[in-house]
């Protein structure tokens, strides 16, 4: 398979780009922010995502979805990134759908139709400390009655306060640091003993701290095998990390485009600042990093879609590269805009904030480079 979009994918991109640019440009996000809106995204927009088929794009056709893959999800995510569109697409339509695919029929039947219809929003409750360390999952799930009792805390859960469905990584056995003994649960909103405290982040998105105070769930809330959830969690992480990298690709691309436009229009000392060679070289270097990163992300998506054994490695590379490149893109963007880049009125600063949040989400570049090194045995 060649490493560029095939005709169907290119057509999807041609649809997704104007759709999101029109329905949810940066002004859409500013509107929600300035209104101090408490959902964190627009439910109307989510319904329109459903009309477009985006919500269920990874869901098999048998369940009413489009049966597409990570490349296609990445196309939507890139546009989300480009427009800073607040959306539960990644956590719901990529993360939760992937998790549920590994679950029992009852679970998929319970949740997938709602997701496809744009009626259900899901959140991923994975991180417990300040940094993404999924192997160290410690939230306790003890057998109790017909099911389990969950006790512990999660944080940095995007959409956690409004999600109908929470995908929760918990520990049923073993110690923090061990893959065995991790179990994935599908927990319903409003479960007794569950409190979500949303917090506004720098990019104006809302992420929650979740407190599980002996939350009782049935045995059929378990996704996959008890104690054997690490494999399922790894699959979820692989797709959401790659998806985040795709979204970051959109963030960087917009930042570069905006900056190049500025360099072409702004004059100083009587000439366009874009004619200064030092800035040209930095912009060209950034372009190179972005092209290379784009290839790494597409490679990861294709390998994931092909169920290739090298997909996990490629995912680590994609998210690490995206972290480094997006950071560079937004830094260069703000600096090259000069003073106005520091003002809230211009968009470039919003890209810097979103880039920072996405760089952290599901593990930063240091984490992924470290994982790659462990993976390679050094």
């Amino acid at each position, binding site marked *: 398979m060649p490493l560029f979009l095939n005709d169907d994918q290119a057509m999807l991109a041609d649809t997704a780009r104007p759709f999101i640019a029109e329905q949810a440009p940066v002004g859409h996000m500013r509107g929600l922010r300035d209104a101090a809106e408490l959902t964190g995204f627009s439910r109307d927009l989510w319904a329109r995502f459903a009309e477009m088929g985006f919500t269920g794009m990874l869901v098999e056709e048998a369940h009413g979805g489009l049966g597409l893959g990570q490349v296609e999800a990445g196309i939507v995510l890139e546009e989300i990134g480009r427009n800073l569109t607040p959306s539960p697409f990644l956590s719901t339509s990529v993360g939760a759908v992937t998790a549920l695919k590994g679950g029992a029929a009852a679970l998929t039947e319970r949740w997938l139709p709602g997701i496809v219809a744009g009626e259900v929003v899901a959140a991923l409750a994975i*991180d417990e*400390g*300040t*940094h*993404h360390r999924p192997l160290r999952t410690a939230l306790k799930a003890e057998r109790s009655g017909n099911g389990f009792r969950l006790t512990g805390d999660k*944080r*940095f859960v995007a959409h956690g306060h409004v999600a109908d469905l929470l995908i929760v990584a918990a520990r049923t056995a073993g110690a923090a640091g061990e893959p065995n003994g991790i179990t994935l649960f599908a927990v319903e909103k409003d479960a007794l003993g569950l409190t979500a405290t949303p*917090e*506004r*982040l*720098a*990019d*104006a998105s809302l*992420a929650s701290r979740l407190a599980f105070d002996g939350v009782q769930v049935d045995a059929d809330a378990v996704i996959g095998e008890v104690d054997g959830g690490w494999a399922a969690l790894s699959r979820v992480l692989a797709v959401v990390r790659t998806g985040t990298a795709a979204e970051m690709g959109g963030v960087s691309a917009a930042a570069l485009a905006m900056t190049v436009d500025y360099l072409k229009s702004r004059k*100083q*000392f009587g000439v366009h600042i874009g004619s*200064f060679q*030092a*800035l040209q070289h930095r912009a060209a270097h950034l372009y190179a990093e972005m092209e290379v990163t784009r290839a790494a992300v597409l490679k990861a998506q294709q390998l994931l879609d092909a169920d290739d054994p090298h997909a996990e490695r490629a995912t680590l590379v994609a998210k690490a590269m995206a972290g480094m490149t997006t*950071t560079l893109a937004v*830094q260069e963007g*703000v*600096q090259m805009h*000069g*003073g106005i*880049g*520091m*003002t*809230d*009125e211009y968009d470039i*600063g*919003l890209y*810097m*904030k979103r880039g*920072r*949040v996405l760089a*952290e989400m599901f593990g*930063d*570049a*240091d*984490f992924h*480079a*470290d994982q790659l090194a462990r993976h390679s045995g050094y």
Partner: protein
Amino acid sequence: MNAPVDAIETFRAETRAWLEANCPPEMRRPLRSEADVVWGGRRAQLSEPQRQWLDRMAARGWTTPDWPSEYGGGGLTPQQAKALRQEMAKLGCRSPLNSFGISMLGPALLTYGTEAQKQEHLPKIVRGEIRWCQGYSEPGAGSDLAGLQTSAEDAGDHFVVNGQKVWTSYADKADWIFCLVRTDKSVKQGGISFVLFDMESPGVSTKPILLISGYSPFCETFFDDVHVPKANLVGELNHGWDVAKYLLGHEREMISGMGLGGGGHKSLPEIALDAIGAEPDGRLDDPGLRARIATFEVRAMAFQAMSERFMDELKARRAHPAQPSMMKYYGTELNKARHELIMAAGGSDALAWDSEASHGGAAARGWLRTKGNSIEGGTSEVQLNIIAKRILELPGA
């Protein structure tokens, strides 16, 4: 000129004792946010310990240790001033007063001001009574000051000032402004004068600019037929550039100081260890971040030595006149790097924007604020141009 070593050591011991006796305990705690910084001025609202600390230091002239005592300064020798700084750092004393009057206008007045101007303005700066702001940049001019448009027309005993400034730091909180105005439109590089006036003068208005940090430390400032007495002209008419350049050098020094961090804040390794924890052997439990912090610490400590060297060379008049550009470039880039690492160390906690636990998003807002360091006071690119041309003497394009 150098005081004998034992005299300095006596001074140091006395200073330490005085600081221990007079610096309120609240003023020896790390700053938690920009709100803890004391700027002074007519409308300043100081806590009791802040007021005490400011008044006690100002009484000795130690808010401006090396200014002449005739204008209220401390009259200290460079060695003594350095010893004072070092002792304050050891005890963790906060700066009693931050001010553009101290860091920028004062040195310029000492060099270019008339005796009357010095007597009028310097003591009030020392005591934190008047807060100053700077009116240099104009819309569309950026780093290119030659395009200055704000005009001052001669009206006998006063000028009539009209125009607009931008990036005026805290103009909405300042009492007076030092300002560049065009007094001769027929030339491009010259024809600019340096004037002082009260921000309460009729015709002055300000509009804060909301920054990406969510703060508004800068304003757009508008002048509509503002009357400025000619006695408030600093330096010669049409030669305001000299004053401005002198002052820009001091601004660069001050901004470059940011690279040093410190100032009572938690160190970067402490922040990281608190957020992430250590491996059993004590190493930070994030090897990539640890390596990046270690490399940063190398640079930061080296820059601390450079800052000491620079101050010593300045005092001895041995510094290259363009060296402030190097300091400004390196210091501000370092400070940005520090805050990138603080964000990486803090992880998801550092992303918080307005929660109480995050002190109102102090980490994220501080990080975003530093992005302006390499823009304000001459961009990093302008500093590199200056180094290339004036120090390395590379040819023009």
